[in-house]
């Protein structure tokens, strides 16, 4: 905003349009040609590690738009930041359609256009400022992706300042659950720093013990006032999680939501969802992480669901 006002002021100084042709995409524009550094299969998902020159780093819950340089698809695809290390940035991807399948076949050294980091992630400063009793991290399926970076970020906080961390992941089956391998080192590191971390996993088909949903786990750990939920997964999962939060009372929650995207930056108005108050919000700009109340409202049986009345 400050920048915009500043520019508005300039208008009167420099009212004539400049006539020089624009340069090409500037080097630090957020639009980069990255190279595949590694691709690791983890059950039915894979981790795509890219070397993105000048990658500025992003927050957990932020995302990037990826498009293979030889893609036959028209639009890029959105993926949560999964891990980063300098110029290396990783994504945990579930191949579900043509765009994700192209990336599943990207060879080392091949180019991938990366636009990002984009959107607003989980604001750990704000969340921790509320001194939550516990951080309850809830991931469903590939919705677990952003929580690797989240755990990494927690590791940078003094253990004493951290509440207990409860990580609950739900998967379809044990093949999908193989992506756990991408999270365990982060959990171990956090524990090694003295933080109290619990990690529990359940599969819908019972292939890792009993059958159930991630909400089964959530009911078992028992939400109570002061808990802060950070969740990502299918819309129905998020809704069910928030219902439990409302039932417990005094629980705050943030959800990373999905929507089909074209631009990822707010240009196209394409990714809107309907909020609890009936208004529409761009997932890519206002989100993808939203406060529970904004999206689902504060009463237990909200009528307004994202997607509106189509």
């Amino acid at each position, binding site marked *: 905003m400050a*920048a*915009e*006002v500043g*520019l*508005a*002021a*300039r*208008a009167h100084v*420099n*009212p*004539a*349009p*400049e*006539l*020089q*042709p*624009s*340069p*090409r*995409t*500037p080097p*630090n*524009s*957020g*639009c980069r040609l990255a190279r595949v550094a590694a691709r690791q299969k983890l059950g039915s998902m894979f981790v795509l590690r890219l070397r993105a020159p000048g990658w500025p780093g992003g927050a957990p819950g932020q995302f990037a*738009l990826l*498009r293979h340089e030889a893609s036959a*698809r*028209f*639009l*890029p695809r959105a993926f949560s930041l999964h891990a980063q290390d300098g110029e290396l940035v990783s994504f945990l991807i579930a191949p579900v359609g043509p*765009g994700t399948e192209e990336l599943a076949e990207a060879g080392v050294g091949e180019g991938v*256009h990366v*636009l990002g980091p*984009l*959107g607003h992630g989980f604001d750990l400063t704000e969340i921790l400022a509320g001194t939550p009793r516990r951080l309850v991290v809830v991931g469903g399926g590939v919705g677990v992706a952003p929580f690797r970076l989240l755990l990494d970020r927690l590791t940078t906080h003094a253990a004493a300042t951290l509440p207990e961390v409860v990580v609950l992941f739900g998967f379809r089956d044990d093949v999908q659950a193989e992506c756990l391998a991408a999270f365990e080192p982060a959990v171990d590191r956090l524990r090694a720093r003295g933080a109290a971390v619990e990690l529990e996993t359940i599969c819908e088909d019972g292939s890792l013990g009993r059958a159930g949903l991630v909400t089964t786990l959530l009911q078992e750990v028992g939400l109570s006032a002061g808990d802060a939920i950070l969740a990502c997964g299918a819309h129905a999962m998020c809704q069910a999680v928030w219902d439990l939060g409302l039932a417990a009372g005094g629980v705050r929650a943030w959800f990373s939501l999905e*929507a*089909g*995207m*074209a*631009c*990822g*930056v*707010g*240009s*196209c*108005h*394409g*990714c*809107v*969802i*309907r909020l609890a108050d009936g*208004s*529409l919000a761009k997932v890519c*700009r206002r989100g993808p992480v939203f406060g529970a109340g904004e999206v689902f409202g504060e009463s237990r049986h909200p009528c307004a669901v*994202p*997607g*509106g*009345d*189509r």
Partner: protein
Amino acid sequence: MIDLSVSLGPLRLSHPLINASGTLDLFEVAAGLGDAILADPPVAAYVPKTVTLKPRPGNDPPRIVEVEAGMLNSIGLPNAGVEAFVADELPRLLALPRPLILNVGGFAPGEYALVAARLRRALQLHLGGGPPDGPSPSSDEIRAAVGGDLPAWTARVGLELNVSCPNVHSGCMSIGADPGETRVAVEGARAEWPGLLVVKLTPNVTNVVPVAQAAAEAGASAISLVNTFKGLVLDRVTLRPYLGGVTGGLSGPAIKPLALRFVYEVAAAVDVPLIGMGGVTSVQDVLEFMACGASAVAVGAAGFRDPWLPARLAAELGLALEGRGWSLSDLVGRAHRR
């Protein structure tokens, strides 16, 4: 270095590449990816998204869906209305170091004039050139002005009339499908707007030529085309319409051959400059639209992949012309020459 500059009425563009309305929001990009894009926007002129008389929420989600070689959108012209636009958007738009082409939508032919008048008054206030809230100049006064002395601000700001949006239930596309209604809309806007007046046409018509002619006769100083093609995508599983607005507009490479045909036909029929668009992704596409008769070319949905694409294409256009030893005028309209 080849001279790439082009004139659209009183607007002078440093090169022919601009954005298509509704596909690039410089301020949103700046908020997400940094202010650099405001200091040096990747377009020779900036076209904001359509603004309408009254605020509109836009259509229900989902609003976009990818298809083969393109996408459909059913955005539905969400905007805060012209009053909020004038108050909140115009100042920062005028701060951009580029000419502007403001884009206006309407739901009846008469609405375009109302919005045009409101914008003109605001511009007079911001940039001088007349009493801000005085009475409208008479139609004759403006017609005279267009031929002769234009207020200085008309070199900074042009107007595009979107008579072609397929994603609203009344007005807009239905206006642009009818030469008579188009004439009324353009005449009305012309009476209120002394500067560059672009009329953006729909390809969802049996014959675009009478509509283009009506627009030109009614005072359009340029014609832009094409807006999107009306289409339908079903949900893959339920087999019911996928988009919240049921139908949507197809854009992207899928429509390029169709868009080229419209530009080619209109170029042969009217004398005003054309702004070509529809599926531009590469410098080859830019060459083709200009060969069909476009003086300027707009990047639409392909800019979603890279907001800086128009600037890159402008640079590549210079190289392509250099490589062929052509000037811009060797290129523009080439497909019509033997």
